[in-house]
């Protein structure tokens, strides 16, 4: 029992430290550069891609963060943006579904590539799969939940 508690405390500190050193810089960089032209053109280019799974320009930034760094960090930006303005439940659903299927594209994939997995399948196939699952589930959810704002 004592060692379980010890593992919990040490593990929690490790987790907190890891989240802290990623989340705070992400938020600062977002705040400093969100309004700048290069940042906006990156987000806009990304928005043109994720438009195909039903995401709008406002959802592009949190989706990009999640896609690159991980679900928890993308989720953090989603929570921040929900706090600032209404993203719409439909958009949050689409983002969550897409990011559930593919996130932390570099870090997570590299771990398995190091183990001998094929990069083509674990990156390329997973992105295609994510898009298909997102489109299918959004279509189903739209039928079920009629009151969603676009």
């Amino acid at each position, binding site marked *: 029992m004592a060692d379980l508690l010890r593992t919990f405390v040490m*593990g*929690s500190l490790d987790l907190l430290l890891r989240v802290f050193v990623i989340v705070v810089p992400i*938020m600062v960089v977002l705040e400093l550069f969100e309004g700048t032209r290069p940042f906006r053109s990156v987000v806009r280019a990304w928005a043109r891609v994720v438009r195909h799974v039903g995401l709008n320009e406002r959802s592009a930034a949190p989706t990009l963060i999640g896609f690159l760094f991980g679900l928890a960090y993308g989720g953090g930006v989603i*929570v921040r943006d929900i706090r*600032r303005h209404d993203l719409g439940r439909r958009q949050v659903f689409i983002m969550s579904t897409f990011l559930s299927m593919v996130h932390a594209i570099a870090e997570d994939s590299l771990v398995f590539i190091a183990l001998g997995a094929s990069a083509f399948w674990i990156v390329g196939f997973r992105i295609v799969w994510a898009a298909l699952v997102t489109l299918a*589930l959004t279509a189903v959810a739209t039928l079920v939940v009629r009151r969603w704002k676009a």
Partner: protein
Amino acid sequence: MEHLGEDPTSARPAATPGPASAAPVPSALSGEPSPQPAPGLGARFRRDLRIGVKAGLQTFWELARVMIPAYGLTLVLERLGVIQWLAQLARPLMALLGLPGDAAVPLMVGYVLNIYAAVGSMQALDLSAQQVTVLAIAILIGHNLLVEGAVLHRAGMNGFAFGALRVVAGLAAAAVADLLMGLF
């Protein structure tokens, strides 16, 4: 991301000095008070830095609040032997993915714990390149379900439903990939 949809030349409200009246124009989208008209570059930097640090700390706290209890639950489940128990249950399913029954262990380790733990337990197995790839797809889609599910829950989604989705869609993706890789 306040004014993404608008004219790119109006980078942010502060860029254009307001009309004659110095009254701050409330920003419709963000709840923040509108900045003073045309502050210097340094002042704007300091303001954005302050907002960024505040948003970072707030988000850190919100993530920590849901991740730490989920992590505690994860440790308890691991201690109770839930991972081995789930792996026993999932063993027969592995054949559908072209994997040996033992592959259920890293899969369940990934679901309950995380990717790194799953990779660790994968190294104990003797898998072909295709099997490594197929198992990797299932684990990459579904892992750390409690902690990440807690974050989605915080974003207003059903964390349990998304956990189930990641398991089911991850296994389906692995099965489809196994089939397709067999063809090529």
